[in-house]
């Protein structure tokens, strides 16, 4: 999906990958956060 002549730092493919990575990171953070939250509340 990279477009010739366009900066690879701002290509649609890169934006798509970054969106996916950002969302996956949020999900992972929430998973770890919920367990840490449980641990803190019963500590």
């Amino acid at each position: 999906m990279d477009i010739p002549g366009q900066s690879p730092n701002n290509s649609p493919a890169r934006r798509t990958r970054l969106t996916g990575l950002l969302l996956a990171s949020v999900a992972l953070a929430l998973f770890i956060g919920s367990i840490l939250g449980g641990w803190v509340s019963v500590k």
Partner: protein
Amino acid sequence: MEATVPGHADTHAHGHPPSGLMRWVTTTNHKDIGTLYLWFSFAMFLVGGMMALTIRSELFQPGLQILEPERFNQMTTLHGLIMVFGAIMPAFVGFANWMIPMQIGASDMAFGRMNNWSFWLLPPAATLLVVSLFVPGGAAAAGWTLYAPLSVQQGMGMDMTIFAVHILGMSSIMGSINIITTILNLRAPGMTLMKMPLFVWTWLITAFLIIAVMPVLAGAVTMILTDRHFGTSFFNAAGGGDPVLFQHVFWFFGHPEVYIVVIPGFGVVSQVVSAFSRKPLFGYASMVYATASIAILSFFVWAHHMYTVGMPVGGQLFFMYATMLIAIPTGVKVFNWIATMWRGSLSFETPMLFSLGFIFLFTMGGFSGLVLAMAPVDVQMQDTYYVVAHFHYTMVAGALFSAFSATYYWLPKWTGHMYNETLGKVHFWLSLVFFNLTFFVQHFLGLAGMPRRIPDYALQFSEFNQISTIGAFGFGLSQLLFLYNVITCIRSGPKAPAKPWDGAEGLEWELPSPAPYHSWETQPTVK
């Protein structure tokens, strides 16, 4: 909305799918994966339905007939888990896979291989759930809510359920990442956010909800797992833990989950009502804002599921009023659907009938929800059949009816054939009558004090239980008509035009029927 559509040859571009089983195992095509989701969902609907009929058979008369109490609890648990995670959620992900790329002018989903993986995680998870019935100690029997301390104590069936929930959660999260990324990055030129069809909007909001709460459910069941096997005491009071903490964590996931199940249905109904009223949707922007409001509010109402745990009055009041607030955006949506129909040129094909059934019955489920939202009333109704009736009005007449509406609406686009309209209408009316026969009487059972999740009951509840069981069998058998109609439509239905519904709007109807294997390889321009 007008679209400049590339030539027909463009939409038929290169490549035919590989044939045989490997086509389905290795596919990254959104239409193939959508089809897999939909067939898987229907299979799970039948499995969960058989469990429901087993439960209703046991409850046909008082006393124990066909199930041991332990087995009965396993049935209610698996019925709930399979219907929510195996049937309804995958059905809407199937619609999303099929329709979102076609509706926004994208050639496919953003991450094709992850899309394949999202689907193929489901069959092993479903197998784990079903096979857990046959392991020593049987399946999980703590209810679909998996409340501690029961879930900390049960046998290896619970471990299999925990693993299945992890897998199902991963699948949902990956599916949601794909949907959000596709919608935010792959829209056709001119397809601004506020031009997107309502189905796409509702799925965008739903996908954010899934990413926000599914990891919390995964965290909750992970804590159960470590309590069971790794010496922690998150929920074990004997070790200093707190079983009520599980309820808080579970319902922080569980209440948004209700909206995850039904919000894509709102999108379907919005499009179907508009198409069969032959009018643009009334209040498009307010529909979007109302949906977002419902999603946001759903994070602040979780404890209305647990009024009886011994919450301070201030807490009860907060959750009571926050819950009642949700009626406002929901009312906006119902008003808009009715206003769309007002002075419209209405026709009542099967998709419209199911959408109208949705509006009427889901609103009834909403009203009984308001009754239950009131803390002093809920203290009386908690864990009675009134609650069972309430959530089946939202889950069955809500989510399932909108799924049927979507299937009949888009089936000509998927298959290139028309379904049998008469059979579709018979399916709707039988479903409507038997649904109410099954669940309306359960309100009375609940008000009279019959508790849920029990295999036996006092003699005075017999008549309503018998009516409910007859309704359940009628409802279950009616669904075979749907299966027959879909199969005959695929194999031998009359040819469908590109746009079989004259009031339908949207890019999907610019494509021929059946939609080509690869669509929008050259993006359309939306004006």
